[in-house]
Structures are given as C-alpha cells and as structure tokens.
C-alpha cells in the first residue's frame, strides 16, 4: 500500500501567514491541487515536516488583466480547467490554453493548479513549454519581496527549479500578443507514461515577412524546458534555413540512449514535432 509518511498539516488563507509559517519548519512542502505532491508523499520520495495547503490563498486565485501594460497575470492557485473560461482571447493566451487542455485528464485538470504545473519541473509538464514560448515570467514571492524570472530560466534540471525555500510562486505574467498563429504538439507513449517531446511555437506573419517567431521545447528527449531563439529569421521562404537551425539545435543537444528510447528516435521525434510546428505557424 502507498501511504504518506506522517507530517503536520496547515491550511493558509493569507499570503503573509504563509511567510510567517514557512520559516517555522525545516522541510515544508507547499501543496496547491496536490496531485503530484500527494503522489510524491505516497511514494515517500519527500518527507516534509509540514504540508502547507495554499489553495485557500485568495490572492493567488485571481486572473489580472492590465490593459495599460497589455499584461496578463495568472495566479498560481487557478485550476487548469478554469483557464478556458477566464483567459483573454489573445494569441499568447491561446497557446497557453492549448497546453493546459492537454494536461492529464479532466480530473487532473480539475485538481491541478497553474502553480503546481509550473513549479514541479517535470519535463512532461505542459504549461512551462507554452509559457516559455510566449516569453512569460514567473512571479515569485518571499518575505523579502517579489522577484520575476523568465519561465524559460526557471528549470535547472528535471524536478529542480530556481525557487528557494521560503519562496512561493505567486503566478505567471505575460504580454498579450495579437494576430499570431500558435502550435502546440507533443508525442506521448503509453509505455512509461511519458512525453518524448513537447513543442510550442507562436509566430506573427505578414505577407511573406515574419514579424516575430518563438519556440520552446521539452519532454523526456530534452529533459527540461528550453527556449529556442529564432529571431534572426524574417522571411517565410527561409523555412529551410529555420529547419537547418532546428536540426543543428537538436543535433547539438547531448542525449543518450535510455529507457525513453535511442538518441536516433528522440531526435526524430523532436524534429518531426518542430517541423510540424514551424509549418503550422508559418503557413499563410
């Protein structure tokens, strides 16, 4: 049987209560939806002295739209299934929504929060890829104040993020983008229940010129969320050069043959997904 080890449990309703409490323990664990956190507890891979349920913090359960700054802030506690009805209809939000609706199944999306999806650091997580592609920032709070980190720079290695003890993700923010095409693709294998590759792309094309184009990838083949810089390309007829660059990117990644497949297979998957994404966002 799987059962968590013993711990204290506290439920927090205010952000400052969180800061007050978190320092009183040596190994606190934040849970929001709890899907993965509870699973890790049941597997006893973590043994926190306290589990802090933050799902009641209303300040983190908001979506803010700042018209002036053209910015959206999604609070950490928002559940994945809620995004559909609250996100604005710009292109960046569209890509984020595409990612969110492919997470797990309906139950996981009802339970799972945005914060949990961003903070876990599993290469199979969806939101980070879309967020990195649109250039979103993680808004991190602590007793000392608030800092922002680009989502693409949040991941150190699988299951390791830049968040420190005492810090909490307040939410993510990004600029709204209009008139872009978006693409979100992933390759899932039932055996070992994993995503070999995940690719998110977004581009603005006018006539034959590419005004803006961004891409991010993740999945077991890559290990963490990585942003790929495609700013140098300005014409859609450079598609072969773009693909060459992607080819080079994939070939230069260090990969190894492992349980998730051979290097040859992983590269094939990543390139297929990336080329598909490019074709989708650049097609007239």
């Amino acid at each position, binding site marked *: 049987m799987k059962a*968590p080890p*013993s711990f204290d449990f506290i439920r927090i309703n205010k952000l400052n209560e969180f800061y007050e409490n978190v320092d009183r323990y040596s190994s606190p664990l934040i849970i929001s939806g709890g899907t993965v956190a509870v699973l890790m507890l049941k597997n006893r891979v973590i043994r926190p002295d306290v*589990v802090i349920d933050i799902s009641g913090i209303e300040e983190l359960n908001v979506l803010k739209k700042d018209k002036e700054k053209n910015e959206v802030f999604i609070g950490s506690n928002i559940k994945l299934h809620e995004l559909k009805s609250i996100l604005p209809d710009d292109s960046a939000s569209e890509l984020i929504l595409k990612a969110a609706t492919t997470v797990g*199944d309906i*139950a*996981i999306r009802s339970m799972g929060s945005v914060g949990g999806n961003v903070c876990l650091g599993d290469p199979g997580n969806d939101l980070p890829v879309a967020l990195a592609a649109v250039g979103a920032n993680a808004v991190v709070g602590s007793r000392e104040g608030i800092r922002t980190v680009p989502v693409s720079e949040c991941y150190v290695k699988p299951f390791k993020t830049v968040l420190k003890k005492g810090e909490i993700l307040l939410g993510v923010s990004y600029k709204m983008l209009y008139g872009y095409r978006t693409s979100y693709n992933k390759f899932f294998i039932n055996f070992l229940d994993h995503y070999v590759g995940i690719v998110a792309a977004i581009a603005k094309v006018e006539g034959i010129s590419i005004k803006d184009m961004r891409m991010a990838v993740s999945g077991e083949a890559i290990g963490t969320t990585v942003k790929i810089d495609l700013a140098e390309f300005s014409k859609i007829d450079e598609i072969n050069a773009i693909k060459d660059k992607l080819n080079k990117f994939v070939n230069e990644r260090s990969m190894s043959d492992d349980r998730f497949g051979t290097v040859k297979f992983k590269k094939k998957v990543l390139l297929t997904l990336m080329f598909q994404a490019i074709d989708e966002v650049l097609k007239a």
Partner: protein
Amino acid sequence: MRIRLNINGKDYESDVEPRTLLVDFIRDVAGLKGTHIGCETGSCGACMVLLDGKPVKSCLMLAAQAEGKKIVTVEGLSEGGKLNAVQKSLSQKKALQCGFCAAGFSIMGTWILENEQDTDYERVKSDLAGVVCRCSGYEPIINAIVEAAKNERKD
C-alpha cells in the same frame, strides 16, 4: 486532527492523522465502499468522486484538502436507491463486466451529462481518458454514456 467532510449531503467527522487520504476517509471513516482503489497513483479513476461538482481522483488528495467542500461519491448518484441515467444505461447495455470500474465511469459519465454541450462518441471517448476499464475495450461504456445523454436530451 479533526476532519469534517460533507459526503453525499451528510457530515462525517473524525479524528484522523493529517496524512489520511481522501479515498481512505471515504472508504474507512464514512464506510462508503463504492469508491475503489485501483492504482493509487492517479492512473485509473477507480477512486473518482465529485468535489464541488468537479471530478477528482480521491487517491491523490488528502482528506484535509477537501474540508469545506461538497463531495459526491458513486453512492450519492443513485437517489433513493434508483440508479441515475448513466448508471441505468451502463447497466441495461451490459457495458461492464467485473464492475470494479463502476464508480469511475458513473462519476465521469454523470459529469459529462451535466457539463458537456456535445456528447457525441468522440467527445465522450476523450472525456473518459482518465478512467481505466480493463475488461470492456471501452466501446460498450462509451456507447452507454452517449445513449444516456441522448435520452436525457429527449426528456
């Protein structure tokens, strides 16, 4: 710690360890055995319940997380001993074999009937993606839910 949960409209209160899983509270404290444990890791949906109307996997939640919310288990779907539309359809069409997945599919099916605009085959098939049935090959279950939705519309 003292935990009070509202399950199928009734309050259950008990002194349990903070680590108590929601599924264990439902089965062992409230004594409602219709919610099952199939995988313990969110893979199978045998433990599915509605939490404030949303389907959740009760093996991946602490009981403490569910305080103040309304929980509906498979037992709560059949009012006064009468099966609801989805359950009736699953039963009439003999969609299940061993029956261990009955809770998961009745909870999800009920949620689908109440929340989905389209209830065609493909939609139901993809909505059921988190519930495992090892016996049926799924088609009989999907058909039974599609059929229940159709009948519901007619009424």
